[in-house]
């Protein structure tokens, strides 16, 4: 009965507003996506190889440290950017271009470590660690919830240490 009564409750204006906004957002999501042209491709690719000057931890496309003729991309990064755009102009595929860089410099040239062997750990850990933490939190929370369930519901005599704890808690709340 209670369930039914809840069902027949009129839908509030706020709920309608949420529904309308959701509908609006979803319907707009069916628009086409722009395609990148060649220079954008070269730019994107140069951000997929590390600057190999050995002094920074940037990609060739975003290298920002002083070096060579002017600050901003160093000479190494500039040379790498140039190589990328030449290969893009030649019509090489993304994979081929990246592969040639790996052959030249070794796997260090990829900013994204390969997802195999030991290095796959770099990807796995940031996902797995929070999941383990979440599981631990879940366990802890379950224990805390059980404590609530087991807490005495009150009775004729309240033990003094419980009273003491209540007083402490009260003072804590009134402190801030």
């Amino acid at each position, binding site marked *: 009965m209670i369930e039914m009564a809840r069902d027949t409750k009129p839908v*509030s204006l*706020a709920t309608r*507003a*949420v529904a*309308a*906004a*959701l509908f609006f*957002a979803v319907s*707009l*999501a069916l*628009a086409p*996506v722009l395609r990148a042209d060649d220079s954008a491709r070269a730019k994107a690719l140069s*951000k*997929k190889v*590390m600057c190999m000057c*050995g*002094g*920074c*931890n*940037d990609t060739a496309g*975003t*290298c*920002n440290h*002083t070096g060579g*003729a*002017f*600050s*901003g991309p160093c000479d190494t990064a500039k040379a790498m950017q140039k190589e990328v755009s030449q290969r893009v102009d030649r019509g090489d595929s993304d994979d081929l271009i990246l592969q040639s860089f790996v052959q030249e410099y*070794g*796997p*260090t*040239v*990829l*900013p*994204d*470590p390969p997802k195999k062997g*030991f*290095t796959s*750990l*770099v*990807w796995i*850990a*940031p996902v797995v*660690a*929070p999941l383990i*933490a979440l599981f631990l*939190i879940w366990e*802890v*929370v379950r224990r805390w*919830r059980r*404590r609530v369930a087991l*807490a005495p519901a009150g009775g004729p005599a309240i033990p003094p240490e419980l009273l003491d704890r209540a007083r*402490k*808690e*009260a003072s*804590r*709340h*009134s*402190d*801030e």
Partner: protein
Amino acid sequence: MDIFGSFALLLAFLATVYAFVAGIVGILTRRTLLAKSARNAGMAVFGLITLAVASLEYFFFTDDFSLAYVAAHSNHALPIYYKFSALWAGQEGSLLWWSWLLSIYVFFALFLNRKKHPELMPYVGVTLAGVQTFFLILNNFVASPFHVLASADSAGVMHMARLSEGSGLNPLLQYPEMVIHPPMLYLGYTGFTIPFAFALAALLGRYPGEKWIHITRRWTMVAWCFQGIGVLLGAHWAYAVLGWGGYWAWDPVENAALLPWITGTAFLHSVMMQEKRGMMRVWNVWLVFITFMLCILGTSLTRTGIVSSVHAFAESSIGGWFFGFLAIVFVVCLAAWYKNRDYLRSDNQLDSLVSRESSFLFNNLILLAACFAVLWGTLFPVLSEWVTGNKISVGPPFFNKVNVPIALFLLFLTGVGPLLAWRKTSTDALKRNFAWPLAGGLLAGGAGFAFGFRSFYPLVCLILSAFVTLTIFSEFYRGARVIASRDGSNLLSAVGELTMRNTRRYGGYVVHFAMVLIFVGIAGSAFNQDIQKELKVGQSLTIGPYTILCQNFDQPSTDNYQSERATLEVFRNGHSQMMLYPERRLFLASQVTETIVANESTPVHDLYVVYAGRSPDTNLPVIHAYLNPLVKWIWFGGIVMVLGTCLAMIPDRRPAMVLRPATERPWSDTIARRAGGSPAASPVTSSPIRKSGPHD
């Protein structure tokens, strides 16, 4: 003068060792006088290091290049304010600077508490002296800034040498922000020592209750705020000076500065669990331990060269000292915790999963996940090389991929968490609190989409930003409305009144709003455009709505540098808007070139133009123009963050409740009733004797 400085530094070392040893003996033998003497020694260290700093500055200001450090980082032509900041331009000086800032904190922590907490303070003094000792060992024996230049003659006799000119300050550091960025960041790094020392002291001395958290709350916020300012100033400097059109590259040293800020944020939130509910005592202690250790790790990353970074000082053998110190800190923390872990036992209870408590648990989980991901990515190349022997790179794309979803979830919690009540939130309250903000967020998302936002993450960020902003404003509005209707005041003054009654809560909201601004600014980077083109005089390039016409190239020069400069006229819709003068300077003393970016910044976007030198093929000047949307929001968010933090540190204004007739309901209950069961409605927190604000 060099003898004066190094002697002061040596005395400081002896004083801090005395503070450490006498402090321990005082605690063990329970001699109050000895403990007091140790405390005074700890405070004296500040004066002694000040003398050392002053003496080093004297060398800089008098252009005395007999010290190796001064000769390496200054020259006659250097402007006077950069002579001041040259103090921390290198390894030795910056470590001295570190020690000095730490000694300021130590002095004030000991001085302000000299008549309080007599059981706790000796332990605090010992901990602080321990940390100070480590840095003074470095200052005195490992990286002294007072090394004189000397050379041996043919007979092998050493003679002091005084150079007539120094090699000058790195021009990248000749920028106003570089005068304030390192002090801010270091004030953050060193500031976390105070909560760390109090936490360890409370644990070692088994100091009862949540007192250490109350004592250190403002200290932690100060350190946290400085760290945040330091990180943002660093980002702004990278943007304004380096000329690559970006502000954050996930460089190991940027990451290192971010890490303690993240765990500090987690700590600032989770202490509320302990204060209000007595929960998470172990967690909080460890959180502050970790934060401190990350501060030490952060500063060591800059100095040891174990990870490649644009920031790194020259590689040196100092790494062993840092890692040794880290190991000692870890062992001490572990032992203190193990020995006294029963003292931290807390009465954790969770009444409902939909509650403030669980939102804080999530907040901590997400912040720690972000911290772990950044730390893991930063150190993984080292780990990988150690395990497999192969060097690999973990570049910016990794950090973006991992951290963007984490950050967005955090933004979501920023909106949800504060509106959940302690203990339990009813479904009705959930609907009432969230319906409108959620609707607003989705509408903003829809509107964004209609205006051409197509990327997933920026769209989510827009929705969440609108959602969080609306929840914050609705909190202010609902609280203020109640006060306004009761006092008959206008809404604006009621907002002020509300804020001043619970500065911590409403200051916190202001900081949350600052984070929204920063998130919006960062999301703008998804729409960055840039174009690079060789330009002859009279030619132009087009980016976004702007056309940039090249008017002239010239070579203005001064005593300090030679320069190449472009004069560009910017048109929008055919109308001339402004002139820009991007420049490239060659600094004569150091023979280093630097880009002077021409950046026209508005709240909508930055038109950021770089003179990128001459093309090696055609010898024509190359202009690189960027159009970066919303960047200004990040810096503005930083200012709001500082204001919010300051607000949260002001003591609450207590309402004058005594004057009211006894029959009237307490105002907190009234507000709770009118606001309709917002968090204040929870049975535990509404009480006639409450001193704090309406929805605490």
